């Protein structure tokens, strides 16, 4: 029972990341009809927004301390962060400690700008091209983006810790009446799950309860008719592209303490998230979210030693096996709409 609960929790946080990326992917597909393979790179850039803000806060000036020596035996240069000098030691230390949550605010304009630049600069030229062309160009773009990140940040993962207050873990076992120290779960992962739920809720509410969202949904259902009504639907879809980029970016920012950011993390998530979108149903937002959590949990359970001892390697293929089964039995995916990707 403890094992099942623990793997369920594990699946929820992994599923949260899949759902957030898949939500953006399917939003872009549903509005613009583009299969955006660069969406994982946006998630990665989001994670590097956290790294960047952390580095900005840690920018330091050096003072020579003759009482200490550096590795070459010369007087050591002591680094003092500018934020500590400007705002005081406590406030400066707090800013450095809270760099990841603060990076959400930092990332939103950056991600919207990145999304806008991608859409206006490249992807809009491929709206009327076959999906194969779109996949090729966005996949190429993803590689370019990750190489740019590698050039500036290096190839190794960069530790980006959560604030001190959230570094510990919560003993679920003790809280639920099980043995203590058996069902332990890191605070930050719980926060990530909560964060994902809020973002997903906000996106759904935005689309359902605002006039803008209503127009976008109408455009997703019948782009031509909405256009004939005099609404500049292309402009609204471009804004949706920026919104999808912001969602993926924030997902990346918050994921930085869970997985030390590295330049290829986007690609790792993209393939799985794309499977999530296909399983959920191309263009279906609830489908993407449901499939994200479903596949995250399945992946987690398949990593259990008990299951791997029966089917070795199942953890590596489970998502694809489920995708094959669902697509064979229900080609539109779990919540896919008739006619989407069926031409």
């Amino acid at each position, binding site marked *: 029972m403890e094992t099942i609960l*623990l793997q369920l929790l*594990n699946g929820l946080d992994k599923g949260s990341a899949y759902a957030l990326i898949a939500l953006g992917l399917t939003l872009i597909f549903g509005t613009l009809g583009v299969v955006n393979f660069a969406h994982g790179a946006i998630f990665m850039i989001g994670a590097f927004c956290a790294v960047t803000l952390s580095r900005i806060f840690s920018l330091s000036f050096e003072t020579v301390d003759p009482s200490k020596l550096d590795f*070459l035996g010369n007087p050591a240069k002591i680094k003092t962060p500018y934020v500590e000098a400007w705002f005081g030691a406590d406030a400066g230390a707090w800013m450095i400690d809270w760099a990841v949550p603060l990076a959400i605010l930092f990332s939103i304009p950056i991600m919207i700008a990145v999304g806008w630049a991608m859409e206006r600069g490249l992807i809009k030229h491929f709206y009327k091209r076959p999906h194969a062309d779109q996949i090729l160009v966005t996949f190429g773009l993803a590689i370019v983006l990750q190489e740019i990140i590698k050039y500036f940040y290096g190839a190794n993962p960069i*530790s980006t810790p959560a604030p001190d207050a959230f570094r510990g873990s919560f003993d679920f076992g003790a809280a639920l009446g099980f043995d203590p120290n058996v*069902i332990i779960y890191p605070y930050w992962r719980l926060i990530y799950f909560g964060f994902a739920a809020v973002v997903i809720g906000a996106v759904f509410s935005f689309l359902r309860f605002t006039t803008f969202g209503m127009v976008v949904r109408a455009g997703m259902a019948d782009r031509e008719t909405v256009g004939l009504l005099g609404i500049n639907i292309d402009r609204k879809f471009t804004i949706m592209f920026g919104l999808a980029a912001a969602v993926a970016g924030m997902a990346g920012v918050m994921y930085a303490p869970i997985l030390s950011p*590295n330049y290829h993390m986007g690609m790792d998530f993209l393939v799985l998230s794309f499977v999530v979108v296909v399983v959920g149903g191309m263009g279906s937002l609830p489908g993407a979210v449901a499939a994200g959590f479903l596949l995250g949990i399945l992946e*987690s359970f398949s*990593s*259990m030693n008990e299951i791997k001892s029966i089917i070795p390697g199942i953890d590596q293929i489970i998502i694809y096996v489920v995708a094959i089964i669902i697509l064979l039995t229900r080609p539109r995916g779990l919540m896919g709409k008739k006619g989407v990707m069926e031409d």
Partner: protein
Amino acid sequence: MSKTDLTRRVSRRGVIKTGAIAGAGLALPTIFTSGARAFTNEPMGGTVTLGFNVPQSGAYADEGADELRAYQLAVEHLNGEGDGGMLNTFSSKVLEGNGILGKKVGFVTGDTQTKSDAARASAKSMIEKDGAVMITGGSSSGVAVAVQGLCQEAGVIFMAGLTHSNDTTGKDKKANGFRHFFNAYMSGAALAPVLAARYGADRKAYHLTADYTWGWTQEESIAAATEALGWETVNKVRTPLGAGDFSSYITPVLQTDADVLILNHYGGDMVNSLTNAVQFGLRDKMVNGKQFEIVVPLFSRLMARGAGENIKGILGSTNWHWSLSDEGSQAFVKSFGTKYGFPPSQAAHTCYVQTLLYADAVARAGSFNPCAVVEALEGFEFDGLGNGPTLYRAEDHQCFKDVLVVRGKENPTSEFDLLEVVEITPAAQVTYPVDHPMFAGGALGDCNAG
């Protein structure tokens, strides 16, 4: 142009003739060189070309960049530029800073991409097109084994860079290949007594292992060494390379009665699995009345940086560390640090040393002929290169020297001060017989001069 015109112009005979001429043209350099030269890429002019095959892209690019820095420094020192670095402390004194056998040392570089096929292609290109007489480098055992095999076939010397799998000088050893870096068996032999002394002999270990040649041999080595001292191995779980989030592999550990987690991971996998293990509170856990411990058998300072504070107090082993106080290490750190502004990594150290050792062997042999170099390196004993007295064992071309047991430093004084040496395990303790079962299955064979 009509189809008939085209057919007339591009006739079958014409294609064959053109192909034959082009083929002969392409083969011309090889035909002449193989006839005129006594061995592959015998240097004929005033320079000799070395091939540095390192990961310049891919996951280990940072490590590759540090290796390349070390190679460039070694070339400078061999050519008599700079302060001479470890040439001044090397026990062998045949190198005089005038190149190798009076020929100026030049180099070409290749990008292994940490992929065996790409590494073989770049090594092949450096040998065939650039005339490299020796290939060196690499940050992965899979790459080292692949390139070593290629060099054996091509008739050039391979001086391995960072490769820790037992197989490199075990079942996949080759007469033309030499490894200065330590191996997984040595890590186990050095680390196990320290683990037993600090954590007790009654421990239950759970292994998470990268699922490829290096991971397997390290898991086998560490499990054997710890079990010999009384530890029990509770489980061995293989994890895919680049798994990213290891939480689903970490949480099952909580369900067992294991009180030690051994992470047979390297690079990004090590950073992620260690970070996940700490996040799940394993280091705060008490099991069997004992404090839960995490061990990372192969530490890399460059990669430890990625794990941040999570490495504090974690035990592991390393081939070399810049904080060593011997004359050779200090000379190297001074040269490297002055040129680049930061201390060298263990990867940089082993690559620098391998270059000097090759040059020295050529100088002592009086020839670039690979078979003469092999003879000069086999059984060679030296000192002053940072690891104390060292032997290049003739039977398997593995260096035997002291091994460092290190621990993540609790209170680092700088961004480079991440590891502290807790014990220098003497070479005798990590030496194994040539026919040890973990190294069985391959034969060195005969040297190939091309």
